[in-house]
């Protein structure tokens, strides 16, 4: 196994995770990316999706919406507006997320980005398969 990076996942209300991870799969706005040790320093915004963290004690997945990830050579920190571990996620919570996004899409003047957010959420919903 390659070296590890310090991974932090924080939402406005609490710190969800702070572990040594060997890789972190991030749903970036321009496409998914995997951060490992020695990754070029990058800042990317997130799209709604699933974030996976591979660490010594297994893989953990979180559903994240909105926010950004900051990757440096030694650490990855993800600041997500909402973040929920996949195993704590319920179908109802997902529905609420989709409904929120639809509502936001209805008033958003930028039709494309709003539709994309809804589509992203629906794709995520399918991926989680609840």
């Amino acid at each position: 196994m390659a070296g590890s990076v310090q991974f932090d996942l924080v939402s406005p209300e609490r710190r969800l995770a702070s572990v040594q991870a060997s890789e972190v799969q991030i749903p970036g706005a321009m496409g998914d990316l995997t951060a490992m040790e020695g990754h070029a320093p990058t800042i990317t915004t997130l799209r709604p999706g699933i974030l996976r963290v591979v660490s010594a004690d297994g893989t953990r997945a979180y559903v994240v919406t909105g926010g950004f990830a900051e990757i440096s050579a030694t650490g990855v920190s993800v600041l997500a507006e909402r973040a929920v571990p996949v195993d704590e996620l319920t179908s109802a919570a997902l529905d609420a997320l989709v409904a929120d996004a639809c509502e936001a899409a209805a008033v958003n003047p930028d039709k494309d980005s709003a539709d994309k957010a809804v589509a992203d959420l629906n794709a995520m919903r399918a991926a989680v398969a609840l």
Partner: protein
Amino acid sequence: MPSLKALKTRIASVKNTRKITKAMQMVAAAKLRRAQEAAEAARPYAERMTAVMSSLATGIGQTESAPKLLAGNGKNQVHLLVVMTSERGLCGGFNSTIVRLARVKAAELLAAGKTVKILTVGKKGREQLRRDYSAHFVGHVDMGDVKRVGYANAQGIAREVLAAFEAGECDVVTIFYNRFQSVISQIPTALQVIPAKFEGGAANALYDYEPSEEAILADLLPRGVATQIFTALLENGASEQGARMSAMDNATRNAGDMINKLTIQYNRSRQAAITKELIEIISGAEAL
């Protein structure tokens, strides 16, 4: 001199008051701990957010393409003051200090010929500002049913503020809240959120930006506003409980002092009555 009976009932009633204030103090202490934990938990997010935004902002803040939330919309005429206060009273000078600060600022702006709009969060501030500034009210956010301040509450306020800014209804937005320092000291603070101000963000390591720096900044700035409001709400919540705790502590102590004073007065007048009766008996006996 009040009668013995009146004194006795007075003492009983002050004792009851003391019980209530003592209970309120303990409730406030428990709530304060929770509020502080919440504020503590929110800190990493806010810190990172500010760090990234300020490093981005120093990079492109001066260029002409800078987003309006950062550079302002070029005007400085309409000021929106968001005054955050509590929903409940009995917390000492907590609400008054915020309102006083907001009042000073509003008077200053009005004297300079600016237009002032006020958005109140929490009922107490609205009540205090109503007399002088009710004409400037543009809205009110009721936090009465909110048990625990969540990010969603902050988002709601942020959305309202951002919508007003985007619609050109205000040019500068300042929030007023009490920064929590300790149980006995809360600092009323005015924080300008739009246009965003950053203190000398050190341009640290070079990053790749995905998408462009401008796009990220444009995406982050509204979130930054929500984060700042959220932090302010949490600080305010902790301050409120802290202020209430010390106010109730004082009240409990005062009630204790008062009980002592009343008890002494009660004993004195009882003794006086006894002495008087004795004198009457003795002088009656001597007269025989």
